[in-house]
């Protein structure tokens, strides 16, 4: 019983490291708005602003995992709203392939998260961050061991 208790404590005290790639025009503005309204959300997501979700090379995601991230979030403009017309569709296509790839690597699909957040949706942003952090806390540390 002792071990289970210990494991329980370990999971509770685990603070995941999550990298968030946010598009400059919608999702980052959404995050900005969440900040301006002083909304509370967990501090586990380290945000990287990119000009477009279509700029998120799958290498960025794999590199994040390789360097110790427990999760990755990609937030894009809603379909039809992309500043560059179609970058978010490209991102959506790459994300579906990444999910297959991660599964084959034995990495839970939920560790890589993709959704659409517009500049006005600060509530959705807060909700997604909170949900994802909770989900990855539940999954525990990734513990990826890579031969270099």
């Amino acid at each position, binding site marked *: 019983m002792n071990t289970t208790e210990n494991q329980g404590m370990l999971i509770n005290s685990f603070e995941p490291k999550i990298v968030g790639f946010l598009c400059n025009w919608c999702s980052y503005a959404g995050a900005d708005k969440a900040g301006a309204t002083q909304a509370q959300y967990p501090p586990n997501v380290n945000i990287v602003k990119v000009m477009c979700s279509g700029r998120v090379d*799958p*290498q960025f995601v*794999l590199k994040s*995992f390789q360097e110790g991230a427990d999760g990755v979030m990609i937030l894009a403009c809603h379909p039809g709203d992309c500043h560059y017309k179609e970058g978010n569709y490209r991102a959506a296509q790459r994300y579906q392939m990444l999910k*297959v790839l991660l599964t084959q690597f034995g990495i839970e699909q939920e560790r890589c998260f993709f959704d659409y957040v517009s500049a006005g949706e600060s509530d959705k942003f807060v909700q997604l961050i909170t949900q994802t952090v909770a989900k990855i806390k539940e999954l525990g540390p990734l513990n990826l*061991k890579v*031969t270099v």
Partner: protein
Amino acid sequence: MGNKPKIAMYWGSACGGCEVSLANVHEALLIIDANFEFVFCPCLVDTKYTDIENMAEGEILITFYNGALRNSENEQMAHLLRKKSKIIIAYGACSKDGGIPALANFHSKEEIYNTIYLNNPSIDNPYSVIPKTVTTVEEGDLYLPEFWDTVKSLDQVIDVDYYMPGCPPEPHQLVKVLNIFLSDEPLPPKGSYLGVGKTTVCEECRRVKTDKKITKFYRNWQIIPDATTCLLEQGLLCMGLATCGGCGGACPEANMPCTGCYGAPQGGSDQGAKMISALGSVIDIAPLKELPESEIPNYIDAILKDIPDLAGTFYKYSLAKSLVNRRVK
């Protein structure tokens, strides 16, 4: 005879195709023999381990090490040849990036042993015998190399001077590389890829390429592609755009899609990730624009279902050197 620079070729976890690529230089073999002394190659020459052990340090000018490193014997030979050679060239996809053997990194040693020795319809192994590193018999102890859990590339074990990609490297590229060492030209910087093209296979492929809008992927046996249009545009998974050139686009020339044997172009990129990136750019998005947000993933998944083994296809030759290079346990 004794003054010629010495060369060696060794195989780690390999199929022997790299030795065939040496034999495939045809008449040039005579020129190689006239200029170099071929001291070690278990596949073709009858020198033994102790002959190499007795050599002075740095006595061999170039060792072409092919094959991945999958067990302790591969590692021991790599260290020995490093000591005895001035220049080590990781020769072929396995040595450079892990190659086909590194696909085993999608499984654990236990799973592999289970499939090969224990649990397979074609296996008759009533006493569940599996290889052991030490077996004691009446006459004494017998030793086998230790089988690793993870397949490694050569540079993950020893210091490597140059890389020659390919499965196997093109024979004409081998001749070109040997000529570098015969000429008076200064050697390329350490870590260079030798015997490669400037960019990707697409650059060398002679097929006509236009704007790509893929709506369905096919496996090679499902269609007969036309001989002049880009194979990717026809829905075949051609890896040319994520693969280092140097082969002259030999496979697309023969109506077969590139499988990526030259690995990623020099510059440290991850071949599989680059392939995903590229496919994300060429799958047609016009139908997505008509769909509600929630339907988009299903539509893309329906296209992707025609790629049966995505990771195995995209990392067919480069898993050991990819960013995430083995399955998480």
